């Protein structure tokens, strides 16, 4: 039902200027990420003179303290941050969705166990918990992704659980079960199509948050390691050379525009959903 209404109202949503702006921005970054080797004017790791050159012809975004071209690094950074963020959100949807669906479908102690663990994660502010997990696992980009996954899955578990609870007792699910569908078949055939719409919208909204967290961890030195052109780490290196403003400014703008693109998209898509599920998502997405 939700799916039908989402698809039915999608064309209207796409006519919104915000959605168009978001889609264009996201598409631009996708092209940059894919074509970075051809678009980037320099090797992102090549250390050449002049160091800390201000933006100008030759180096449009200037160079950093090691003489690396910042424009090229920002472009290559898209190949680090964007795929990792998408993977991260996909994993959160998978883990959280599966656990939430089990909690909602089976109820009883399965529900209790899963949701209490989710509550526990919600008991921490996200950056703090992600930072604690990342610090404990050791500083690396993979561990940073794991850390964000740990704080991200409960949102999906809650939303999926709520949605599953909403359809579990509906006639078509019950009649499927009476026809002899196995639990998994029932979940896959009858339940899943009814919850994908809202979960996908939540995922779109979450891409921005995930990227902010991931680059925040890298900024703290708990993510990407130095030579890698990761945006958060690049901003961190800009802190050291404070008066060369361009070192931190451009990677920061890169993060901002990517997050903005997905928030524009997600916000419009959420409005296209029916109000009840939209509210459920809004409350959970905090």
């Amino acid at each position: 039902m939700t799916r039908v209404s989402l698809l039915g109202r999608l064309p209207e949503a796409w006519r919104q200027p915000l959605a168009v702006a978001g889609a264009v921005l996201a598409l631009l970054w996708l092209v940059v990420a894919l074509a970075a080797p051809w678009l980037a004017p320099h090797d992102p790791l090549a250390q050449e003179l002049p160091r800390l050159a201000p933006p100008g012809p030759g180096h449009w975004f200037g160079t950093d303290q090691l003489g690396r071209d910042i424009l090229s690094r920002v472009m290559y950074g898209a190949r680090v941050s964007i795929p990792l963020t998408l993977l991260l959100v996909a994993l959160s949807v998978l883990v959280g969705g599966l656990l939430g669906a089990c909690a909602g479908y089976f109820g009883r102690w399965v529900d209790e166990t899963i949701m209490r663990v989710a509550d526990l994660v919600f008991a921490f502010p996200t950056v703090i918990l992600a930072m604690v997990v990342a610090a404990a696992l050791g500083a690396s980009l993979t561990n940073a992704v794991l850390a964000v996954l740990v704080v991200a899955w409960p949102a999906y578990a809650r939303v999926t659980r709520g949605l599953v609870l909403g359809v579990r007792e509906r006639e078509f699910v019950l009649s499927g079960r009476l026809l002899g569908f196995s639990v998994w078949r029932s979940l896959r055939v009858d339940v899943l199509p009814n919850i994908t719409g809202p979960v996908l919208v939540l995922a779109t909204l979450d891409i921005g948050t995930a990227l902010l967290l991931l680059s925040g961890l890298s900024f703290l030195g708990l993510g990407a390691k130095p030579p890698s052109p990761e945006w958060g780490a690049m901003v961190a290196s800009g802190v050291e050379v404070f008066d060369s403003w361009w070192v931190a400014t451009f990677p920061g703008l890169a993060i901002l525009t990517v997050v903005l693109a997905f928030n524009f998209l997600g916000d419009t898509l959420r409005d296209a959903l029916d109000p009840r599920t939209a509210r459920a998502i809004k409350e959970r997405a905090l």
Partner: protein
Amino acid sequence: MPPLARFLIRRVLLAVLMAWGITLVTFVLTNLVPGDPVAANLGQRALGDPAIVAQWRAEHGLDKPLWQQYLLHLQGLVQGDLGTSQQSHRPVSQDLAEFVPATLELAGAAILVSLVLGVAFGVIAALRRDRLSDHALRVLSLVGISVPTFWLALVAFYVFFYRLQITPGSGRVDAALGGAPAVTGLQTVDALLAGRWDIFASAVGHLITPALVLALYTIGLLTRFTRSAVLEVLGQDYVRAARAKGLPGRTILFRYVLRSALVPIITVAGLAFGSLLSGTVLVEAIFAWPGIGQYAYKSATTLDLPAVMGVGLVVGIVYLVINLVVDVLYGVIDPRVRLQ
């Protein structure tokens, strides 16, 4: 038992259970994960000497079975022992006690700004639904939740302090003033208590930029949420009845709409406070604000695990208490909640 008392008791018990869960989480994270505290703490030469390694492990109780370590850990926590920071070589609790007030002052200022601006913006957006100001506020609030805080802090510091020189730089007050005698630990309040207006002005001046940077995200969040909460109330029958009665718009807004819209907004504000506490980790380092955020930043970058866990624990508990207070307030204000 009256429903309100039962509601309160259940909430408090739940909070205690969650607090215990938090200690379990921080303990498991410090102990079960691959990061080796020995390697992180001892130099290369000391690591080569098994005697030194064994002594260090025994000193920190790492040679006992895990459940005993947890009990020891819990016993320590109850006595206020959060372990020793590997960097400052001081008890983590002592470090934290020193830094917590500064962070509470910063986060408190930020939540105040967010509530005032976020609710005002949200009400304006709802009353002018689908008009230009609504759309403008929507874009603004989306930008607010999309800006990387750590980057914004850097930009604000560079522009306002370094370039324009209209805001004071790092720290909480001008060093020359020395600061007010500590009573509450909140610089602004202490200055007022001491009747030192010069210190108060300096403290507020230092507070403005980091608080605004920190608040931008929560302003965006609260604007969006207030807008939908107000819109929902505006559609209610009793608002229509009030309007039909011919009550002035201001009375309807404050007495009818805001009063019931504020209840969910307070809940969100409690959650927003959590994101503010998180944000301090990314902001304080830039503004050299001597709070637990900067402490967490330094501990994280040097992989000082006891200190990081101490921050996680304290912030987790503070967050828990705030949400408990919000929950209880919610139950006191709205009788429907406590009857659930």
